[in-house]
């Protein structure tokens, strides 16, 4: 495998775009990333497009018809919430393998106000929802958090602190869907969605798009003096554990991915300047502190208590605002957190810039499950 650089990135502010369709959103992000890379669609040799809810609708090819149908290979990817990050990884693999020199990864999604994921269709007469437990995401991730409570005595307040932090971070991010602080009383007093997760501890639905241009290190030199390198790009699925699938296991596959990514990158968690991780719910972020080895087993509660994951702390996590504040248009999410890290490594992240950022880790989980970890470095 050869070295791969991310040369151009961009994203649309996450939010709601009722007057645009998903192809328009994706096209705008793709063109902005091409411009950032200083290249044109004619330089792109392969396109990987991530979109979940319209994954049967040839989104990638439709984007190409909008921005330049050059006839190159186009791959459409769906991998639950890890859709965008899987698209990025496929683009990375295409270049790292030596098959192509320049690849474009696009992630897009238009969710509108679709509400609870999985609730659609759960009304069928043989649906088990609310009869035999829950399969709705807030409850599933609620249970994952409660498992941490059981093991380590973690409290709802500690989970709530994650939401406080990420909303505070989001205020400084012009690309975030929500830019409003939520003090801890507000988080704890908000209506419960699925205990221990209250409203502000759940990410919103929304629309968005993000794109990245990847090149071989050699090719990248022709286009940029500030390449960001992909130090590791890892994808795992969930190995057998005895309670899965009754209880989804979001931990084992993340731990496996982290171990592999650190090894491939030749870096450890202590070398990271920042982490963008999959905080679909506040409970999830706390678990991933341990899964990504940002602290020891059972120490995640203390890490947030000590404020070490704020921007300026020992290891800033989700300075973009994370999914909780920045938003989570499924297919766009995984590409957008690559975009975020690239901006920081280039020193272009504005008010939220992580000082002296040298290396960053992007983590995504798609339930069912897929986990991607991409480590980027200067």
């Amino acid at each position, binding site marked *: 495998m050869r070295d791969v650089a991310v040369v151009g990135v961009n994203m649309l502010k996450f939010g709601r775009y009722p007057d645009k369709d998903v192809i328009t959103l994706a096209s705008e992000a793709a063109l902005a990333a091409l411009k950032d890379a200083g290249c044109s669609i004619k330089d792109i040799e392969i396109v990987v497009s991530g979109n979940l809810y319209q994954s049967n609708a040839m989104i990638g090819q439709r984007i190409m018809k909008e921005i330049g149908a050059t006839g190159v290979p186009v791959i459409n990817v769906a991998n639950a919430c890890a859709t965008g990050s899987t698209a990025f990884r496929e683009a990375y693999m295409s270049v790292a393998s030596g098959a192509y020199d320049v690849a474009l990864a696009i992630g897009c999604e238009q969710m509108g106000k679709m509400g*609870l994921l999985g*609730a659609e269709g*759960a*009304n069928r*007469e*043989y*649906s*088990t*929802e*609310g*009869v*035999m*437990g*829950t*399969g*709705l995401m*807030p*409850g*599933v991730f*609620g*249970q994952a958090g*409660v*498992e941490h*409570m*059981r093991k380590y*005595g973690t409290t709802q307040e500690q989970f709530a602190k994650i939401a406080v932090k990420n909303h505070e971070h989001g205020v400084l991010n012009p690309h975030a869907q929500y830019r409003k602080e939520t003090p801890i009383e507000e988080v704890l007093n908000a*209506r*419960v*969605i*699925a*205990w*221990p*997760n209250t409203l502000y501890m759940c990410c919103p639905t929304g629309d968005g798009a993000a794109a990245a241009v990847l090149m071989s290190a050699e090719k990248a030199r022709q286009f940029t003096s500030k390449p960001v390198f992909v130090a590791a790009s890892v994808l795992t699925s969930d190995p*057998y554990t*005895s*309670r899965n699938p*009754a*209880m989804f296991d979001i931990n084992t596959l993340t731990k496996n991915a982290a171990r592999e990514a650190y090894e491939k990158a030749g870096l450890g968690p202590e070398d990271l300047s920042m982490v963008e991780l999959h905080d679909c719910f506040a409970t999830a972020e706390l678990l991933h502190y341990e899964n990504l080895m940002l602290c020891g087993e059972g120490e995640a509660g203390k890490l947030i208590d000590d404020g070490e994951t704020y921007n300026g702390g020992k290891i800033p996590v989700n300075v973009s605002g994370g999914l909780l504040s920045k938003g989570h248009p499924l297919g766009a999410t995984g590409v957008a957190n690559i975009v975020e890290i690239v901006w920081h490594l280039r020193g272009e992240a504005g008010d939220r810039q992580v000082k002296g950022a040298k290396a960053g880790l992007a983590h995504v989980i798609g339930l069912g499950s897929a986990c991607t970890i991409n480590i980027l470095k200067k």
Partner: protein
Amino acid sequence: MAQETATEKKVNPIVPFLRIPEKYPEEPAYFWGVKCACGAKFLGARTACGSCGATDKFEEVRYGGDGEIYVFSVVHQTVPGLEAPYVAAIIDLDDGVSVRANVYGLDPLKPNPEWFGKRVKMFTEKIRVDREGNDIIAAKFRIQS
């Protein structure tokens, strides 16, 4: 002429791993599954073992309805038409498999770490009728007194 009588209504389980005997409810419904020679246990049928990959080492097993609460959430916001809040738990059955379940006999407004490990017992009841008029039976759990 008398019209032909409608097809006899059936009693259907909500999930394939809940088995309803012919003489239900006199004979209770129960969870069933397969056990692989490697030790892995599953609810319902499997094409191959999710743990070791073996295809020919399964034996069918009937699981008892006793177990304990491993973890839980309390779901407040849910699909329209469902009664909420409800305690949605993962139950570890004594026979070595885990199942998603609603648990009754706890105050959903007071979620509590004391619920961990609480003993529960399975019961079944009719929850809905399907569009063909068949009864749908679900398995639920209540706290053992």
